[in-house]
């Protein structure tokens, strides 16, 4: 166990030494890896913010349930009971009097409303299911429409579907982009490690002759690949945060123009951890492929 730990510690130290032995070359490699990871990471953060913005937008996941005009308070109360018993949704009751009052307050509507012989608006419920997927929304709409004394159920399902399709397309494009850049990261690490193996051919040859195992020879390269990937991932996290910081002001101003308070957000700690660990895994993969191919000539 001690020997195992000693060898791993030595391999890690060797990886750090190699990284700092050629600072310019290492910095350029890190920059390439950092940028490769920044693009999909930034895309993910933007898409996540867009999804939240969409879900917060008025009416996107709301279902309006309008009662018949002749529905009594008791019948409306029955719907209220059903909604209370149904799980997984938030709702509020909008009495017909409140609805009329709001309509009156709308610019240019006061005179029209005053001229009406009676209140033409029904009692209504605004229902917001927690599952806001288009399929769930449509299923709930159909169910609500079947309840007694419900005259009309309104769901802007077309908008919801369009938004959902847009998000799915965005996620797919992002996954393709991430795959492409991940392959790029593996390729960068592959080439860096290949050059290192070539540069250390003499050491590898001697080490093998005096009893080094394959694991002993490979280990420092694996650590180097993982270290380079992890540092590149952390650099990407820093670049994403810097980008969000730059965009925060203009986005806030734009949101204020629409009378909302929206700020861009990103999962800082978990995001940096995902990028760091993901980068390390991809770097390790690149190193493994490279070492496996490069060491064949020593067999």
């Amino acid at each position, binding site marked *: 166990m001690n020997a195992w730990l000693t060898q791993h510690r030595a391999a890690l130290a060797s990886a750090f030494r190699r990284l700092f032995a050629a600072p310019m070359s290492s910095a350029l490699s890190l920059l390439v890896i950092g940028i490769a990871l920044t693009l999909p990471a930034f895309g993910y953060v933007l898409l996540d913010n867009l999804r939240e913005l969409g879900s917060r937008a008025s009416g996107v996941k709301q279902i309006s349930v309008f009662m018949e005009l002749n529905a009594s308070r008791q019948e409306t109360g029955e719907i209220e009971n059903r909604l209370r018993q149904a799980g997984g949704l938030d709702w509020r009751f909008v009495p017909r009097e409140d609805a009329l009052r709001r309509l009156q307050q709308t610019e240019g509507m006061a005179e029209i409303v005053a001229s009406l012989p009676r209140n033409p608006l029904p009692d209504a419920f605004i229902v917001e299911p927690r599952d806001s997927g288009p399929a769930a929304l449509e299923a709930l709409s159909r169910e609500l429409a079947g309840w007694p004394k419900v005259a009309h159920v309104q769901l802007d399902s077309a908008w919801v579907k369009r938004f959902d399709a847009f998000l799915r397309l965005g996620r797919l494009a992002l996954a393709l982009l991430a795959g492409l850049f991940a392959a790029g990261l593996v390729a960068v690490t592959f080439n860096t490690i290949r050059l290192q193996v070539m540069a250390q051919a*003499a050491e590898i040859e001697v080490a093998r002759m*005096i009893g080094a195992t394959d694991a002993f020879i490979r280990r420092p390269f694996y650590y180097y690949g993982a270290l380079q990937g992890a540092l590149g991932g952390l650099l990407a996290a820093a670049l994403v945060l810097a980008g969000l910081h730059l965009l925060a002001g203009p986005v806030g101003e734009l949101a204020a123009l629409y009378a909302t308070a929206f700020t861009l957000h990103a999962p800082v700690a978990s995001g940096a951890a995902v990028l760091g660990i993901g980068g390390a895994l991809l770097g390790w993969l690149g190193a493994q492929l490279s070492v496996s191919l490069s060491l064949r000539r020593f067999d």
Partner: protein
Amino acid sequence: MIVASNLTKRYPGGFDAISEVSFAIDAGQMALITGHSGAGKTTLVKLIASIERPTAGSLVVNGQNLPALRRSAIPYVRRHFGLVFQDQKLLFDRSALDNVLLPLQIAGLPRRDAIRRAQAALDKVGLLAREKANPIALSGGEQQRLAIARAVVNRPTVLLADEPAANLDVDSARAILDLFADFHRVGVTVVVATHDQGWIERCQNVLRLDHGRLL
């Protein structure tokens, strides 16, 4: 300790570098493998050290039949040997001490203990004062002594050398021979391949090779 039976090494193209060679070297012996250039000395050293795999025959070292071993077991077998090459195979990107440390790092020895043992090995070959020097700054004789320090630092059971004194002046060659004799005196099995007949009088076991066959 080292028992070869009908040992053969055939290279691609059909050339037999070693052909049906049988011999035994007892533990603690100082053995000489000699013969003219191209006789197969280096190939035999490589076979004993498991650097090459035989085409046929058996080669038992410390009770293990080397040709039958799995590839993954070979590095552990090599650690029983201290290898000294004609061209030393030193690493010129590090100090003399770091060269000697390499076998101990491979064995996973803690760094502090490894440094102590490496310095002791350098002291034994008279190079402790040059521990920080790069091998390129050492003379040919010193480089060969450094290679010997690296070979013995892991306390091998067999010290195996291929032309260890080639290209050295008479005094340096004698110093190398004396070093091997010192290690032999403390119980290390020493196997030296050389065409230099000056070693014969110090060796108890002489294997003469000619065109890959034992005379």
